[in-house]
């Protein structure tokens, strides 16, 4: 696979490490949320046949974490964003 890195252009997927569902960005606040919320965050994932937003780490490259929108049926990649931008847009900060 080729991943269109937003900064570096198309890069071979072999340069990346896959983590999984981009929902891992939405980590609960550990000072407020309890075990139930963390359990759901950590263990409950969707496994769609179709579009999936997932985290890839450019380990053999610039160390960016990316959110890649991929069709799990065709492997078509519809979008690749810097995870940092996605996290900021989702209200994550400090």
């Amino acid at each position, binding site marked *: 696979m080729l991943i269109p890195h937003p900064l570096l252009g198309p890069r071979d997927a072999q340069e990346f490490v896959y983590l999984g569902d981009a929902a891992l960005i939405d980590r609960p606040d550990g000072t407020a949320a309890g075990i139930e919320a*963390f359990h759901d965050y950590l263990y409950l994932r969707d496994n769609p046949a179709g579009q999936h937003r997932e985290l890839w780490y450019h380990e053999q490259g610039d160390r960016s974490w990316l959110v890649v929108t991929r069709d799990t049926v065709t492997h078509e990649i519809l979008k690749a964003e810097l995870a940092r931008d996605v996290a900021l847009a989702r209200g994550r900060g400090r």
Partner: protein
Amino acid sequence: MSGPFRLPSGGLIDRGRTLRFTFDGRAFAGHPGDTLASALLAGGVRLMGRSFKYHRPRGPLSAGSEEPNALVTLRSGARAEPNTRATVAEIYDGLQATSQNRWPSLRFDLMAVNDLIHPFLAAGFYYKTFMWPARFWERLYEPLIRRAAGLGRLSGEADPDGYDKGFRHCDLLVIGAGPAGLMAALTAGRAGARVILADEDFLPGGRLNAERLEVADMPGADWAAAVVAELAALPNLRLMPRTTVIGAFDHGIYGAVERVADHLPEPPPGRPRQVLWRIYARRAVLAAGATERPIAFPGNDRPGVMLAGAMRAYANRWAVAAGRRVALFVNNEDGLRTAADLAERGVEVVAVIDARPEGARLPGLRHLRGAEVVATAGRLGLRSVTLRHSDGRRETIAADALGVSGGWNPNLQLTVHHRGRPRWDEAIAAFVPGPGGPPGLAAAGAAAGLMSTHGALASGRARALEALADLGIAARAADLPRAEDAPVSLRPVWHVAGARGRAWIDQQNDVTVKDIALAHAENFTGAEHLKRYTTLGMATDQGRTGNVIGLAVMAGLTGRSIAETGTTAARPPYTPVAIGALAGRSRGKAFRPVRLTPSHRWAEEQGAVFVEAGLWLRTQYIPRPGETHWRQSVDREVLATRASVGICDVSTLGKIDIQGADAGAFLDRVYANTFSTLPVGRCRYGIMLREDGIVFDDGTTARLAEDEWVMTTTTANAVAVFRHLEFCRQCLWPALDVQLISTTEAWAQYSVAGPNARRLLERIVDQDISDAAFPYMAAGRVTVCGGLRARLFRISFSGELAYEIAVPARYGDGLIRALVEAGRDFDAVVYGTEALGVLRVEKGHVAGGELNGQMTALNMGLGRMVSRKKDAIGVVLSGREGLTDPGGHRLVGVRPVDPSAGLTAGSHLLEPGAAKVAENDLGWLTSKVYSPHLGHDIALAYLRGGEARIGSRMRAVNLLAGTETEVEITSPHFIDPQGERLRG
């Protein structure tokens, strides 16, 4: 003349040169341009192999990579390569080829007894027969079947040749250099696009080399050669002969195997035998041609029976007659070309048996309409053919070769690699590329079901023009050369009905029409079930000649259409790939990179023994003269360290520089304990959890300045921790002002431990490092040896007064030499990982065996380090009920009650008298060492309710090693539990 069956003229072979080779020890001759099969046929050899199951005598069925029968072993010794297709192997002077799957000889094979008992060996025989008794399977049935199964044998020796991998990029990849591929490459090449033209053959031209058909009013092979010459001169086009595109992968990535040196006695110096290419293509044209299929009739597998197109190729391309008296059995117009071509070349064609009742007859030949072959005879090769005329009358004709054509199947395999679904085309009675398939890949020519030369040329040009337009590359449509455009005119005949005897469908796997009927009777009617039940379409040829007729026979039995029956999905690779090509250079020592520490050269000079730690080679111990057992060296290193001072290279520990105004806050979130309160110039032991509450890693982190920290990780987790920290920084807390960089390889770091550690270091470090100036857990920048910048940490893994000192990696060799020199008066030793392990187990520090990815801080006795006053990764879930059981595993020490008794790591802890069953298992020994200080074995262990059991006696049982030892449970701190030494 190279053999009695070589025709006096013609052929794309160099008759001026003779190449000598052997087959089963017999000498033969051929010419450059010959394959092993063509040269053997020229030499009168038809019998080239024995079939897989029944050991039937077999000859070549085809003239290409689809060959199911003529599999041989090439070369000898370590270079022997089994299961190579004689039909594609190029001969060279000195080639040794050997037949397979026969004993004692190809002509007399004792295993052919299987053929006599064939009624018992039908499809499903193994599944049904070797069921009972179950215990016979492993001991008797499987070894017997394994001995009988398989074709060629591996040499068992390491392959002496190199293999490589490479990467290439192009606008257009053209797969196949027949008329369609050449026209596509010409169109794109002239337009200036970057083109790769790959062809599995050593001679580009595809089917044009095997035909007498004209293109642009010249012989097709000459036209192909002229186009190839033009293409070869284009700087933007790369011609890759002997290169098979084996698979279409995601996003326009194609795998291809180039046989660089298979046609040579051995690879030239510095060159690989094969290269596995990864080709990144923006667009691709599949011009892989088509494969002819046989017709199933009794005795259709005898040597001498071959595909009509192959017979024509042997005559036209290699100037070899398949026999003296040749018959043909065809159901389509293309098969008649063989009759005409052979007659033209002076080969006697005794009969053309044409299953089609209607139509004109070939002039000057005995062309029998509406006839079918019902039997053949000849033990090791065809002697006669029995046919049934349209009126039912039978006739036996003497013939030593029979060409069969049942139609052609497009080579659409690559279009199926992305869930593409082939479509059944009634007009040519074959599957053609259907919807789906790899984006950017379009089929042209016979691969797309266009069977005429004109169709190939026109579609090759069209597909290339479409691809170029897609890419925005301006192109001009080259004139189409004049070529034949004959219709296929086929009447489907899959197998000859009403004839007795075994009719073969898949010759490689010995699948007959009867086996298909049996699969139907047992309801294995789906295409995939049929394959698995009968083995139709398995093994090296993947059923390229047999699949469709097998499916058609099944369709006939079920009453469904072939389209409804469907076909199995072709998967990569298109043709067999040597494991060596897939491995490339990743063999032996080059399997993975080796990382050397800065003291490696020094340690080598000392005769150190090294151990692999991940990619690293670390010093395990350094034997001294007279030491004959590793324990002598390790015991000495441990005792000398505790008595005076020892030095150890710890450069392999992960080192991460963490900077920024929020670095402290960041560390508070990634470590379970608190760091933001740590003063500048101090370091702290930290424990890092995974989000599920399990301990991930541990190490010390020092604060070098208000906003500058340096973290250490374990050697094993250096990469994973850094990845995790980047995840936390970028995905979880993107607004924190914190920056990370891995400096693992930037610093050489040595531990200096023991009562004389400070005195030794005072000779190296330029600053005051007295206990008052540099107390326990101090950290900071210093200089050494009169000005070299360095970092000093007063931390201890051994329990002794200890420091770790780091200098830029390029000074690591110098520093180890300086430390050893400075320690000479103190009898300083350099210790390796074994002594390191002994020292830390004696002190009760957790490491590899304890940091096993299953245990919490509580299990490790570090529960109080987990701060619940802040948000940190893993803290919430570490509080789950299952992880906080008071009776759960706790870290303890273990020693044998009898000091002379040994302990075994991995042993399980049981109550005295408890039965040795899993329910009574209370824990296990994670790390075991011999403590020279205490004079007996000691171990760390996880034990249920461990703290409460300290002082009690248990049994350490190891069922694998067959050991059982009475042990006492102790504190994990065997030495200096109060920590007085390290604060000294």
